């Protein structure tokens, strides 16, 4: 149902012309359409002009022994432009709340917020990797267009209101990702990463599709809002066992994609193998999209899917555990809804595995992979609260995580010269950081502040994120997860301060020279650094910006209203 125009909106054309049936629908998704068209047009542009440049490049190569990157610069700049235009279009979209295309796509404040986050993260990760792409001889403009296409598919993913559109969007996104992971064709790590990602990704997509079909088979519905209605209106003794299993499959499929434990095993390999610019993109953007989707899927559609008989984790009966802990466990796992149980388990496991796994890593990208697994654990706390505070905390954390990750990758993507190696390199091992404080103290302090923030030390940004999360967990009586979250912070601190220790206290192990940090990386570093450092001046700013969860509150209220009426 299309909402009428807001009050201050006046149609420009007031002549009597035929209104196209889906006109408002197209207006709603105009930014996405623009994004899609931009990617296609840029592809055409690239294909047409690459040949001309290729010819030039050949002559250059032959005559002057110069190896110019082909088309990458142009297309990257154009893609950045496209992102910016999409942002502008999104902010100026006249229709903010709508359900369109026969309940296939939906648009509201939460979705709008997530979309903005996604575009920002994609934009920033393209910006910080400009220099990398140029110097690392990833001589293919398709790379950057694939990023654009993946972002576009994530925009669709987050606004999808139907199982089918959801599946289509996530497949498009995954296909782009497989190619991106394997993009550095002359590196066996990258190929391996691509292959691993493809096999496991295809498997998880299969699981997801299976879950969707189970839900469809048992309820006859693929639409999210219809699912909400049907689950909230069931009586006491009606159990959707099949749908429950379907929901579990859907959850597992998605948990694969956001690298939650126990579905995380591919993450370190893929993060390490793929080109660093792609890793930066992987680390942030899909998580925002899928967690945004989770909020709508589990906080509203599957929220009332409740069958105690079919699936209840009675962990509390283990013998030899002290009674208080026993009580805590049983309270945690019996009083919660089925979907909450899944996420509770994954959240606790992710936090612990993320912290423990990162302790003994030697390569920085693997370490960051584990760190992001840990962060996913924290995000899932916000999700499994099932309250508005929880979602708000989740969104706040996403913002802060976005900023911190962009910051760290901007440092990793800055060029470095290594002894005995001719070409420009990047920081690869964590022992490379040992030169940082001696040669580039400003980068070192940025890195240290960022790591302290990731570890959740006050007064830096990461602390406020964790504070809101723990608070929301406490307020809905998820004590166990809150306590584990607190202790996992201490555990994760061990390896974060190990990085600080390497960059500050250790003798130089690897002889590296930092080249000039690219200008755009410098700007982004400066901005994100100040955000991390000075968020405590007004921690509520993030809170205000995520107050859009109000709209979700209304939806929950409506659902409760329906439930009350039928009970």
């Amino acid at each position: 149902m299309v909402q009428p125009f807001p009050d201050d909106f006046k149609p420009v054309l007031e002549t009597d012309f035929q209104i196209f049936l889906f006109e408002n629908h197209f207006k709603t998704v105009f930014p996405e359409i623009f994004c899609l068209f931009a990617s296609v047009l840029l592809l055409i542009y690239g294909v047409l002009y690459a040949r001309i440049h290729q010819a030039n490049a050949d002559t250059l190569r032959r005559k002057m022994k110069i190896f110019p990157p082909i088309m990458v610069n142009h297309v990257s700049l154009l893609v950045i432009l496209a992102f910016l235009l999409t942002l502008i279009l999104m902010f100026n979209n006249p229709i903010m709340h709508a359900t369109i295309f026969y309940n296939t796509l939906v648009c509201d404040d939460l979705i709008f917020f997530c979309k903005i986050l996604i575009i920002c993260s994609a934009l920033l990760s393209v910006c910080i990797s400009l220099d990398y792409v140029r110097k690392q001889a990833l001589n293919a403009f398709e790379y950057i267009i694939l990023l654009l296409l993946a972002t576009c598919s994530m925009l669709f993913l987050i606004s999808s209101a139907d199982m089918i559109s959801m599946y289509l969007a996530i497949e498009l996104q995954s296909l782009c990702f497989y190619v991106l992971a394997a993009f550095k064709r002359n590196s066996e790590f990258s190929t391996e990463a691509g292959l691993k990602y493809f096999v496991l990704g295809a498997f998880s997509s299969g699981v997801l599709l299976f879950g969707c079909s189970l839900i469809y088979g048992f309820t006859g519905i693929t639409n999210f809002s219809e699912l909400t209605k049907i689950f909230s209106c069931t009586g006491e003794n009606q159990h959707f066992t099949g749908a429950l299993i379907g929901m579990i499959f859907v959850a597992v499929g998605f948990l694969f994609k956001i690298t939650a434990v126990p579905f995380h095993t591919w993450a370190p390999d893929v993060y390490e193998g793929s080109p660093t610019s792609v890793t930066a993109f992987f680390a942030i953007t899909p998580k925002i999209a899928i967690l945004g989707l989770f909020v709508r899927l589990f906080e509203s559609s599957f929220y009332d899917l409740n069958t105690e008989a079919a699936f209840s984790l009675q962990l509390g009966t283990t013998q030899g555990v002290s009674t208080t802990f026993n009580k805590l466990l049983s309270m945690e796992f019996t009083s919660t809804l089925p979907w909450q149980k899944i996420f509770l388990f994954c959240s606790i496991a992710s936090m612990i595995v993320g912290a423990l796994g990162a302790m003994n890593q030697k390569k920085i990208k693997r370490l960051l992979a584990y760190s992001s697994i840990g962060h996913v654990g924290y995000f899932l706390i916000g999700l499994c609260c099932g309250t508005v505070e929880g979602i708000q905390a989740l969104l706040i954390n996403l913002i802060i995580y976005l900023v911190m990750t962009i910051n760290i990758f901007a440092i990793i993507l800055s060029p470095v010269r290594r002894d005995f190696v001719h070409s420009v390199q990047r920081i690869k091992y964590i022992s490379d950081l040992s030169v940082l404080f001696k040669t580039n103290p400003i980068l070192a302090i940025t890195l240290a502040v960022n790591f302290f923030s990731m570890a959740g030390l006050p007064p830096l940004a990461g602390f406020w994120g964790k504070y809101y999360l723990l608070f929301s967990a406490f307020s809905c009586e998820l004590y166990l997860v809150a306590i584990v979250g607190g202790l996992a912070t201490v555990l994760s601190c061990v390896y974060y301060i190990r990085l600080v220790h390497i960059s500050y206290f250790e003798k130089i192990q690897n002889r590296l020279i930092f080249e000039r940090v690219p200008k755009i990386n410098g700007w982004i570093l400066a901005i994100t650094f100040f955000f991390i450092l000075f968020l405590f001046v007004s921690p509520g700013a993030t809170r205000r910006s995520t107050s859009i969860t109000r709209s979700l509150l209304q939806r929950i209220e409506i659902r409760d209203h329906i439930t009350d009426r039928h009970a």
Partner: protein
Amino acid sequence: MSILVSIIFIPIIGALILFFVPNWKTQLIKNIALNVSCLNFLMSLLLWIYFDHSTAKFQFSQTIYSESLSFTIAIDGISLFFIILTTFLVPVCILVGWKTISNYVKEYCIAFLILETLMIAVFCMLDLLLFYVFFESVLIPMFIIIGVWGSRERKIRAAYQFFIYTLFGSIIMLLGILIIYLQTGTTDYQILYTTEFSEKRQIIIWATFFASFAVKVPMIPVHIWLPEAHVEAPTAGSVILAGILLKLGTYGFLRFSIPLFPYASMYFTPLLYTMSIIAIIYTSFTTIRQVDLKKIIAYSSVAHMNIVIIGLFSMNSIGIEGSIMLMLSHGIVSPALFLCVGVLYDRYKTRLCRYYGGCVHTMPIFCILFCLFTMANIALPLTANFVGELLVFQGVFCNNTLVAFLSATSMICSGGYSLLAYGRVAYGSCKPYYIRSFSDLSRREFFMFIPFVVVTLWLGVTPQCFLDAMHCSVANILNI
């Protein structure tokens, strides 16, 4: 702008100025840092001058309202002296590194100025959450100070221990704060002060707070980090650790645990008494065995801080005032002793007792000062510690004579280890190893010590002017 706000911001402004001074102008950097911190000390004396002794109200209060964050900063008779102590110690820290710190001078000064701001903010913050925030954020500069300017390779381990121990306790405290916030919906101290918590909840929250403060004090099972951190930190780091950071724990007990959870405090008093007495006796005996001069002072700090705990939980105004006095005097005497060890270390590059001997022949002025501070550490009458310990014992004697008796053994033990250490360094035959390279105190060092001498004697001779300012606040905390 109120004095308090300017005291908080002066060091930060100093650090900002330093940020734009080029690295190689080390003399200029040191001068700026010293002047800024001295200016801040003078400003903090203004606090004392304008302080109204006759009220328990929070003074110099400055409330910051904004949509997202509103809090009050203010001081009462308790936090007043801690702020002055902080501003007193920071110039000394910069002065002590004047010659010895040769690399990263700018970073050194910036770290100490930022640390100063954070510590002052801890003492004047009347918001539980922000107290926690600043309480924790002290870790970051301190971690870097120990790790970068520490003396040996073992410093890494020390920095780790310091960090992880403290963080572990603090995270548990954060959970306690969240419980409070869930009940009351605010973390403002003055509102919490009027809030009643149920007994069961008091016990839980008190225990979470205890986890954090006990690490900072440090109480007995979690005191391992302290000797390590003290030994490995640079002299200035030890000064701040002994002078201020240890007081954060006891200050937290005094400011939050006792007034907010009186029932739980009573409930846990026997536990605290037991732990503290074990700590006092155990660490005193441990101290006697130590051969590292810094470790001797570090362990004796543990003993003294546990006497402070006993005084706090005697739950009468004499005991509490005594422990505040003891905190202050320990905050003067213990840093002074660390400075003495620093002076020795700068000359001989070792801290082990057996390399020293007969210093009284080669460094007479130094030995006089060292003797004075050793005597103060033993709590000789007319020195600072005596007043505090006497009041503590008197206070706890009203409450529990056995505890008073056992804790008073610390005076004998401290006599044992302090005199032993002093005797090993100052007396005996001159050790021939370094006889050619001796030198007595330089002018800088002498002027560094003079304020400590003055304050030690001042606290010991006329403690009344300190006690006057804290009567009302202490009575207020005890709800008398």
